[in-house]
């Protein structure tokens, strides 16, 4: 069954482009070009995946995620942006997006990313992996009060490095000799740490890059 997808982007041309690219692989159930309309329609239609622009009139993609998740936790968000700025990307991930891809992504890769998010997986682009490595850099494990969310395990770092080098999850699984599912569970763990950590260093990093 095709995943039901909702598009949120304030540029009609971009929406039309995505609609065309994905017409064979997903079911586009609606679109919106601003925050309030997006929240109302997403809650009404509860799609599997929302493709969400970072910059939107009326509060940005983050406001959409927060507005929807207050009422509905099952809708998954995939951030889609022309922005390469870490502050945009990380703030959406921390708000609850399940992944991030740039708008220049090839149609087939976008379809795969949507399917992955619909299946409950996390989509890490090389760039997002780089941002996370940068954010958690130089932090020895077990140095603070809440170790569970404080540092990445060596294995998680290894996985992120491979993704940052351009490896797909499958490439990573071959490289490390583990199942693809194992790779997915590693990146899910990283995403959770990113969302739950209130680590001092992370907020410092965020501040340096004008996040939050």
């Amino acid at each position, binding site marked *: 069954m095709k995943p039901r997808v909702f598009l949120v982007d304030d540029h009609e041309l971009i929406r039309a482009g995505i609609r065309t690219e994905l017409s064979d692989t997903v079911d586009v159930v609606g679109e919106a070009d601003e925050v309030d309309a997006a929240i109302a329609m997403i809650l009404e239609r509860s799609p599997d995946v929302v493709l969400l622009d970072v910059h939107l009139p009326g509060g940005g993609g983050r406001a959409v995620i927060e507005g929807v998740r207050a009422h509905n936790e099952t809708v998954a968000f995939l951030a889609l942006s022309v922005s*390469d*700025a870490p502050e945009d990307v990380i703030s959406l991930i921390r708000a609850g997006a399940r992944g991030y891809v740039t708008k*220049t992504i090839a149609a087939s890769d976008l379809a795969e990313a949507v399917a992955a998010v619909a299946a409950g997986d996390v989509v890490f682009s*090389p*760039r997002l*992996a*780089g941002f996370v*490595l*940068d954010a958690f*850099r*130089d932090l020895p494990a077990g140095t603070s009060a809440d170790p569970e969310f404080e540092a990445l395990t060596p294995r998680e770092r290894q996985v992120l*490095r491979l993704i*940052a*080098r*351009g*490896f797909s999850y499958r490439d990573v699984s071959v490289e490390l000799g583990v199942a693809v599912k194992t790779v997915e569970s590693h990146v899910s763990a990283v995403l959770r740490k990113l969302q739950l950590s209130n680590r001092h260093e992370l907020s410092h990093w965020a501040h340096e890059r004008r996040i939050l």
Partner: protein
Amino acid sequence: MTPWRRAAHGAVLGGVASGLAVRLGVRTSLVRMIWLVSVLLGGLGLVAYVAGWVFVPRRAESRCIAARVWAEPRERHASAVAAAVLVVLVLAVSGVTRPLSAGVLWPILPSALGALLVWRGASSAERERLAGSWSAPLVRVGRDRSWRATALRVGVGSAGVLVGLNVLAGARTSPTPLSNFLGGLVVTGAGLLVLFTPWWIQTVRELSEERLARSRAQARADVADHLHDSVLQMLALIQKAADDPAEVRRLARTTEHDLRAWLFEDQHAPRDSFAARVADLSREIEQDYAVRVELVTVGDAVLDAGLEAVLGATREAVINAAKWSGARDVHVYAEVSDEVSVFVRDRGRGFDPEAVDPQRRGLAFSIQERVARAGGRTSVRTRIGEGTEVEIVMKRAHP
């Protein structure tokens, strides 16, 4: 019965009258009327008002102004000195202008003392309100261009100027020349103030708005210039190259980088930053070849000889991938920690390391050679049909 407190809202000056009205349960306007009459009948009202201002606490405040000043030794001393100066000043003036002294000057002295205390001891909330209530009417009057407001302003202002000039003209023949002269000056000045202050405020405001508008127009012109130079030119090129997808992609990518660099210019790292230089070289290669360089950098360092060698090797590795792999994307991952590692990866056609054509081996050799000389190492992983990855690692001299 509620204690007497000065009003915090709806006050004209210190809120003494409205506070008293609340305390007595009568209308504020009645209290104000009685007060006005008492002021005109000899100034007693003025002294009483200032006393109320200084000795009655403001609503929601525990201490009166006098108590505040008293509690601060520094303020206490400063006020005592200022009061002494004031007394001397008033006595001196009244010595010169004897006929005025009895009727006019005696309420002025305690009132001025009270005003001094208010100035030094008022709470920050009250200060704020006072500042607002003094500047707001002027601004409002300046903005009010209705016929009635203008007529009132011109009428009051000209009357003040006329009366003042008249007093000045009669000063020489009057029995109290100095006080007439001073009074005339004050009244004339007040009249001029009423006439011209709103106009002046308006002019200042318009000037600053105009300046703002001009700098906005300048910024807009800069944007237009830039859009014309880069984006419009590029769009023209793209239309011409419409039949060549690779070229269109390259042009679009170049424009994107150019715009980004222009928009986020101030965020750029300094020129001697390793990460910035890797970004530069990726951009240059994208312009020269029809590839997209997906660059991810983690960490950064100031360039040194070793890092220069890494940069040079990275450039060659990316160019190699762009020229030979046939892939659309080249991934570059550069990480700086105790050591610098760069991975250049494509998912192109790959090659058989044992049977490379001499030209390519030459390039690979020059990468290895260059890095080895600077104390680093390189490795190449490739297989036919599965792409190529070049790894460059260098220990840092001063991590």
